């Protein structure tokens, strides 16, 4: 192949990529940023201004939900990691042969169903007329129907459930590649369970932990279905507010500003997570 043919094939391959990234990612996001700084003066005139952002800070409902969504997402991510780690350890290091494959498969199965189906399943279990409530009554532990849905605990149960796969898979992958001699050496040098876990296992699994945490955090922060369907009146989620601005109130300027804020929050936390753990986006994602 001569040089000009090489250049030609580069451009042939580069063009679809650039069209995709520029037309579907970069330009729309820049436009969203632009619209968020617009203020509607009348039905067809716009001015530049910070009004949408001022609304966010003066209207406590907005920023409270924002902080709440961020904190709950972090908590959910942490909880998912805690729950998934022993499972991943078992699958990667203790289970053998068929059991290993079957257990791993069992973790994947729920994710062949959509988030909507999973959330719906939890609603059937948790609501007042639901299964848990009926069981409690049948066992005589409750006198009447018990409502377990529509509160923050229910939301977190659902969110953790949605995130599990994305935590288990990267953990299993990194733990699988660990050399058992490292762990044994840790014990030989006098470490107990806790020190070996902290000094050997966790550092080794760090890339998996970080990629799992980033994906789960992102999915949780940006989830809409689970918090809306399982949360109560007080469990507002920030994506719900964005939806309301766009679809219900048709206030695109305010919605765009809220969207930008959510994007800033998620990017900031993902970036911080990468910095603090010394990982790179390329390493954990690609």
């Amino acid at each position, binding site marked *: 192949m001569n040089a000009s043919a090489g250049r030609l094939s580069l451009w042939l391959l580069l063009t679809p*990529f650039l069209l*995709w990234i520029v037309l579907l*990612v970069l330009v729309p996001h820049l436009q969203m940023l632009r619209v968020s700084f617009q203020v509607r003066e009348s039905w067809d005139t716009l001015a530049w201004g910070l009004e949408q952002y001022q609304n966010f800070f003066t209207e406590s409902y907005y920023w409270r939900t924002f902080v709440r969504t961020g904190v709950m997402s972090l908590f959910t991510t942490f909880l998912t990691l805690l729950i998934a780690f022993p499972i991943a350890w078992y699958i990667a290091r203790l289970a053998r042969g068929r059991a290993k494959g079957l257990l791993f498969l069992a973790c994947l199965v729920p994710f062949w169903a*959509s988030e*909507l189906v999973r959330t719906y399943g939890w609603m059937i279990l948790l609501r007042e007329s639901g299964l848990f409530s009926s069981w409690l009554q049948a066992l005589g532990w409750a006198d009447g129907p018990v409502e377990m849905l529509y509160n923050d605990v229910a939301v977190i149960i659902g969110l953790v459930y949605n995130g599990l796969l994305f935590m288990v898979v990267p953990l299993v992958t990194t733990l699988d590649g660990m050399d*058992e001699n490292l762990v044994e050496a840790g014990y030989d040098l006098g470490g107990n369970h806790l020190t070996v876990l902290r000094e050997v296992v966790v550092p080794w699994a760090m890339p998996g932990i970080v990629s799992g945490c980033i994906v789960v955090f*992102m999915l949780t922060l940006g989830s*809409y279905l689970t918090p809306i369907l399982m949360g109560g009146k007080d469990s507002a989620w920030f994506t719900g507010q964005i939806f309301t601005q766009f679809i219900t109130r048709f206030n695109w300027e305010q919605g765009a500003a809220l969207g930008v804020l959510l*994007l800033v929050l998620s990017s900031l936390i993902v970036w911080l997570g990468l910095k603090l753990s010394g990982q790179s986006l390329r390493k954990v994602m*690609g």
Partner: protein
Amino acid sequence: MIRSVPRSRWFDGLYLAYLVAFFVYLALPLTVTAVFAFNDAPFPSLPWKGFTLDWYLADGSGGRTGLFHDDTLLSALWVSTKIAFWVTVVSVALGCVNAVLFERLEFRGKEFLYLLMLLPLVIPGVILGVSILVFYSGMANDASRLWGVELDVFRPGMTLVVMGQVTFIATLATLVIAARLRKFDRQLEEAALNLGATPVVAWFTVTLPWLLPSILGAAAMAFLMSFENFNTTVMLTGSDTPLTVALFNRLREGSTPVLNAVALLLMVGSALLAVMAMGRSRDNA
């Protein structure tokens, strides 16, 4: 905590109990959803009133309309299928092109473009939807107001949904296909060239067959992800509602076992697709 390191018996017992509890937690919501699709009662809750297929087959005469007679849900299913088809075609095509671009070619700014390629994975789905809505639908509004030109393709509807989903599904397809291309032995291609094949012929007779399992895997994944997507879709959908959005609207009105019937159908459908994709990739591994 390793096979060769001794553990206490109560720790083992505790660990086992935890494992069991975890897998029960994992299985419970899906199991109840599936089981209540066959309960002969108007609500998906206890007590169990007997087995019925009404939630699939009832034609509305007995006050019950089963899934196969529910026109709204069936048309939503069709809308979702059409969307998923186009998303799969576009994402897999982009995935192939991108994989070759990043695995085979050297050019300036490659590292930066690779990071751009990963970007959609760290943008919340709702934001992807919102930004596309603001840009394209806003453009359609402006064009209509300023020049009286109607750009209906860019109003909320199927085209925008496909565009929104392609944004991030193309990244995933690229990663799947690139991973396989990385393992390809380039000497095979060179051998084809030595034997007189043109680069294009070598690509189609040697490289593409090697990539085929990952292309099919990426296609199955793209189809499933598109079918299930809600967060991006809900911002971009127009009057032709896809299934997830239709189910969501139903669910807000209150749940009936028809929803369980749809849910079970979705689970079985995606499980079949996943098993097929996994089986194929194992054959060719």
